[in-house]
């Protein structure tokens, strides 16, 4: 039984990393959205599995949130925004997909190296889980950094946060997990609304330079 539970959890976590990679090489927004939905779905599954094996019912709530909010509500909302702002065209990336992938590989390797130094008596499940979570987090961050497009950056942030939830749920008996996931959902909602409100079109970048030039006179 132990083996099975472990393998399933392991498989789910691993596939989460995989999906993060898939996100990295999407260059259409819609596709990216769908992939992210998948990402959230897998997260929900793995959280649910954790809930099952740790028989911690409150985790089911977290899984629920992940499923409903991340896999459905947010993608739909973003879809709306994309349509509304008419930006459903190619994503321009700061770093090409190829290099991004390579970087991603490097990051995953790094997180493995860092995590596998953890001595074995920390239970292996947690260890593997953390390794994967870390790589998901890093990949999410990488996504935020390499994409210019606001929406895809939000998606990057969300997948980063998925990694957090993965880690949190993997941490057996950690309190406040639900609250945290809720808090994060609120945070993300904020961001999405922010994008929508401030009409931040293509990218975060637009709000910067010219604004600085025009208004603040900080620049010569």
């Amino acid at each position: 039984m132990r083996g099975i539970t472990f393998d399933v959890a392991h498989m789910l976590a691993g596939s989460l990393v995989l999906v993060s990679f898939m996100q990295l090489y999407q260059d259409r927004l819609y596709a990216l959205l769908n992939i992210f939905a998948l990402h959230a779905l897998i997260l929900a599954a793995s959280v649910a599995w954790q809930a099952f094996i740790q028989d911690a019912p409150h985790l089911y709530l977290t899984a629920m949130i992940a499923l409903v909010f991340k896999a459905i509500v947010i993608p739909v909302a973003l879809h709306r925004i994309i349509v509304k702002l008419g930006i459903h065209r190619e994503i321009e990336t700061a770093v090409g997909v190829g290099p991004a992938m390579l970087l991603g590989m490097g990051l995953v390797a790094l997180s493995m190296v860092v995590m596998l130094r953890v001595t074995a008596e920390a239970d292996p499940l947690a260890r593997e889980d953390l390794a994967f979570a870390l790589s998901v987090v890093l990949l999410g961050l990488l996504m935020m950094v390499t994409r210019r497009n606001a929406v895809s950056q939000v998606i990057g942030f969300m997948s980063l946060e998925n990694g957090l939830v993965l880690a949190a749920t993997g941490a057996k008996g950690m309190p406040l997990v639900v609250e945290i996931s809720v808090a994060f959902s609120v945070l993300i909602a904020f961001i999405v609304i922010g994008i929508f409100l401030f009409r931040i079109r293509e990218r975060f970048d637009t709000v910067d330079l010219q604004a600085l030039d025009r208004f603040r006179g900080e620049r010569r």
Partner: protein
Amino acid sequence: MMVVYALYGVAALLALAPIAIVLGAAPRTQGPVLGVATSVVYGASLIVTLSLCIIALLSLFEYSQSPSLVTLPLGLPWIGAHFRIDALAAFFLVVVNLGGAAASLFALGYGRHEHSPLRVLPFYPAYLAAMNLVVMADDAFSFLVSWEFMSLTSWALVVARHQVRENLRAGYIYLLMASFGTLALLLSFGLLAGPDGHYAFDAMRASHPPAALAALVLLLVLVGAGSKAGVVPLHAWLPLAHPAAPSHVSALMSGVMTKVAVYGFVRIVFDLLGPPDWWWSMVVLGVGGITAVMGVLYALMEHDLKRLLAYHTVENIGIIFIGLGLALAFKAHGMPLAAALALTAGLFHVFNHSVFKSLLFFGAGSVLNATGTRDMEHLGGLIHRMPQTAFVFLVGCVAISALPPLNGFVSEWLTFQAILLSPQLPSWGLKFMVPAVGALLALSAALAAACFVKAFGVSFLGRARTPAAARATETDSNSLAAMYFLAALCLVAGILPGFIIDALAPVTKSLVGFSMPHQAGVEWLSIVPIAESRSSYNGLLVFVFVVLSGSIAAFAIHRLASDKLRRAPAWDCGYPDSSSATQYTASSFAQPIRRVYGTSVFHAREIGEMPPPGATAPARLKVELRDLIWIAAYAPVAAAIDYAAEKLNVLQFLTIRRYLSLVFTALVLLLLVLAIWP
């Protein structure tokens, strides 16, 4: 408990600052009230400084053997603020408060001309207090606090005339250099105190750092105290800041504060640092010699009266450091008597310079008030308009040019005597270096005379070059009193040097463990550094001789020959010219010397514009001087900082994504660090 009384005095001075603010800042205060404030502040500081001076004298003569200490529950909590008056501190207290008293007396009259007294009055007493505290402080923290507080208050005084751009710039550079020096001292104290912070001086005295560290400390102190004292090449702020302040403050900065800096150097190097290495003295001597010559050369090229004086301070600091360097050399080689002689020479010059430099700055201040300009090219003929000022200024000039029978000569004579002992030094480096330094000293002395012929001759003699100079009037009685007082001191210290040497005996005893032979006993009141057969000098006798023979000559000629006198136009080889513009100006006076030294030291170039024949344009002669030290040392630093700021400034205008990538990079780097962590 002298130190306690002294601290009361300091407290009184500190209390004056708020009083000044209250008096001055009372709503709608106009002339009269401010006048009252002025008199109150300066009067009070005069009284306090005088009493402090008396305290210091008492403790120098009577309590010098047993330093009086006190520890206040201030400053660093677990150490407290230690204050201590030993012989050295007492001597410097005398210097500080003598200068302070003179300045206050002078300011009683001078201060009335102040445009915005509120920018001067509060800081003046605080400044005096700070200088006193530096000398009394007996632990690193209180020392540095007072030290930097001294810089701070003087900075406020420098920027008192803040409408003038240069003054702001001067203040800025001054503050930077001051903090630079303070940080250097801070580092040196860090080394002396060690990681577990034995900041009290007696703890430092107890434990001597290893040689390498000690050398580092010496260099740091040389930088720290030197930058305050105006040692070349750290002098750049001095000629900017000293003239910018009101003249009585300039006098304090030049005459007293630089001495406090010297005190800092002596205190740390001779007292705290333990036995010196022989090569230290070479560093100090070299710095001193270069400083002396460079200072006076700068001064010669200058025709702003106050800046000239400021540059001259640099020269005298050089002379003092030569004395200190010699003392170090002798001390390192275990020749206490010679060390005592050299140290006495240096400290004697400290006293002398504080006296005549204050005097000269007062004179410059009076001239500034009377004519409204510091530029010598716009002065001239003042000896007719303000004869008394001219007289005292002349005394100051003779004294600072190290001419007998005034005091400046005595200290330089002692320095020469110390130099003449150098052959007994075992180390060859010093054997050869000291005479060279002696040559530099002689050169600087001769140049100083030239410089003050120029200073006095151009601004006081000849004919008035501007209406302002022609309309000048004699300065007020308080200022004159202060100046006469200092002039008298110059004479007394010059003809009765023995007393001062004896007064310095406890100081040298405490620092190099030996003191010069007692001079009071020597017949005819002359001074004998080592042995009568070797060398001796008697200022009193020389003075009497000169006066006697001069008056005899006068009497004889007037009695036996004619004493008639006719006034007539100047002869000037037959074609006297009415225009006062044809007189020799300061820069033309300096021209021969500029030809000799300037071309190499200042890259001086004379550009003559001769109009073509027939053209009516006037011929012009422009002189270009370049301050090589500034160009070499300061400008690059400023440029580098500006460049770096410019480059880094880009980081203010990145996009959020870029900022995120900064975070990302930081994260990855740290993780990498972990990954490669053993």
